[in-house]
């Protein structure tokens, strides 16, 4: 071993597996908050609260996972909220045929939206922000047209609502099961498959990836389709868990998803990211709503809706500043 290698190895030692650190940070925050909440509120750790909380947040976790992939390529997908709405509307129309039909249909809606996004981004060379902004408007318009501006009644006679409201083994709500499956799928995709590596490489340096012979466009198609598909699945949950296709739901969900990804420590510039910390980030952000509701229930103070948004912003500020400190201290040497 020559001197050069030796020294390089030493200096390289400073940054070992960034992403696991990333997850640790969020996990600790999550545990502290949970501990605080379980001590303060009686029913916080009740089965009912845990299950309904996770079940509701499954929709956000799903689009967060998709968003994580998109962001790791250095892109963004603003259309997810609208795609959720569109999928829920389409699925509501398909609900009489049962979940066996509705589920694939909903995912297909998302796949199509994602494919269009990818086409506009890769072939027409329109930046992701604008391309998906257009899809955000387009999918929302489509949802309104297909629903005649109103919530679409789902069929309560078929097994459709079982997916959103039923439980596996009478214990775990199906949305949670679906979310966990999607999580494991995404994790394996990122960590174990070449696809995941390509996603990270493109985010790290798109031009270099191209010059190194990666089929960048193919990978981008995969990523936007994945994001769309997860949004589609989320739409199925929305329709079957709330009994209606909702053309106006999902406003601002894209921002929650982005926030979840970033709170999880993933870089918006792409190239670095973690599926696990995105999951934890989404849960962390969802928890703040849950906690605010419980706090109001204590009867000591009753926050107005306005204070709630101030508190949410403040919470985000604290989390993000802490993350930034952790990340900046880790990356300082590569700054210049």
């Amino acid at each position, binding site marked *: 071993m020559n001197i050069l290698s030796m020294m390089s190895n030493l200096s390289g030692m400073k940054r070992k597996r960034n992403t696991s650190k990333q997850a640790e940070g969020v996990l600790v925050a999550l545990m502290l908050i949970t501990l605080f909440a379980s001590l303060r*509120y*009686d*029913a*916080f750790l*009740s089965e*009912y*609260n845990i299950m*309904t*909380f996770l079940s*509701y947040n499954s*929709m956000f976790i799903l689009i967060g996972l998709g968003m994580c992939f998109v962001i790791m390529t250095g892109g963004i997908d603003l259309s997810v909220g609208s795609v959720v709405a569109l999928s829920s509307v389409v699925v509501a129309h398909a609900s009489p045929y049962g979940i066996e039909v509705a589920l694939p249909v909903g995912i297909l809606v998302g796949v199509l939206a994602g494919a269009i996004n990818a086409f506009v981004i890769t072939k027409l060379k329109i930046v992701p922000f604008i391309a998906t902004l257009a899809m955000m408007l387009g999918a929302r318009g489509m949802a*309104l047209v297909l629903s005649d*501006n*109103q*919530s*679409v*009644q*789902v069929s*309560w006679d078929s097994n459709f609502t079982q997916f*959103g*409201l039923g439980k596996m083994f009478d214990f775990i709500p199906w949305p949670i099961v679906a979310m966990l499956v999607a999580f494991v799928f995404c994790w394996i995709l990122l960590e174990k498959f070449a696809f995941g590596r390509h996603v990270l490489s493109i985010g790290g340096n798109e031009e270099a990836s191209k010059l190194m012979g990666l089929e960048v466009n193919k990978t981008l198609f995969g990523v936007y389709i994945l994001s769309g598909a997860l949004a589609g699945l989320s739409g199925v949950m*929305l329709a079957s*868990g*709330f*009994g*209606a296709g*909702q*053309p*106006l*739901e999902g*406003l601002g969900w894209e921002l929650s998803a982005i926030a979840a990804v970033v709170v999880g420590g993933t870089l918006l510039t792409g190239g670095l990211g973690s599926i696990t910390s995105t999951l934890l980030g989404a849960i962390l952000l969802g928890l703040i*709503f*849950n906690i605010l*509701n*419980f706090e*109001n*229930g204590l*009867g000591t103070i*009753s926050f*107005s*809706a*306005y204070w*709630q*948004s101030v508190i949410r912003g403040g919470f985000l500020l604290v989390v993000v500043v802490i993350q930034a400190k952790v990340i900046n201290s880790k990356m300082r040497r590569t700054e210049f």
Partner: protein
Amino acid sequence: DLPALEKKDRYKVGFAQTESNNPWRIAETKSFKDTAASCNWDLVYTDAAGSAAKQVSDVDSMIAQGVDVIFLPPREERPLLPAVLRAKAQGVPVFLVDRSVDEKVAKAGRDYVTFLGSNFIEQGAIAANWLIEKTGGKGLILELEGTTGSSPANDRRKGFDDEIAKHPDMKILASQSGDFARDKGRKVTETLLQTYPNADVIYAHNDEMAIGAIQALEAAGRVPGKDVLIVSVDGTRDALQAILDGKMGVTVESSPFFGPLACETMKRYANGETIEPWVRVTDRVFTIENAAKHIDEAY
């Protein structure tokens, strides 16, 4: 098979507001908060910020906290069904407030106790009839709709349009959503006035949009109340003032002050009474004749 409500001195009451972005909702929330003090409630208040899904989740967290009853203004008719059904399954009686849910799936007296609220269709019809009487059945109308898909928007349009349809000399030139908001109402009116400069009536689904329309008219050099007659619903202070200033013709009241009614209805239910499926709120009509008298109690 409705869950019963035991008689207690003090109740833990959930109020799951849908959003707080307009004066009407704010007045409604205030009414519940005030009532909490007078009616001996521990109020659990949540705000869904305009998301039906979050509202369901808010109801869930109330159930988890073990509230005795829930007052729920469902944001939309259908997506809130699961919240109603779940509360019932967990033994918590639900009172719907100001908007209802789809009757095909959930019924008053079976799934929820009752619906407290106005008749939006009737509000639209009252506004229409006042207009017909005032103009002698003639007019070219621009309609500013409320939030797309919400039941007040749907019903106020239905009530109004059905009455107007009976008069061949009245015509609704255009109908567009102003989202129940002043600014949006102004912008929509500005745009519509260009296409339909001949319009002489504006019907707004709420007072906020009506005020926006007045501003648009003034900016365009038209005289509201004279060139263009304005009809609306709600009965806010600004609207009553506009009536007094001669800028607006009528506003049909849609009272947000549900607190006292909620307290009373709940007590009746706890006493074992069977509650009628729709506890109606009677709405007044404000015109130049009575506006001065009521402006101080308006919100």
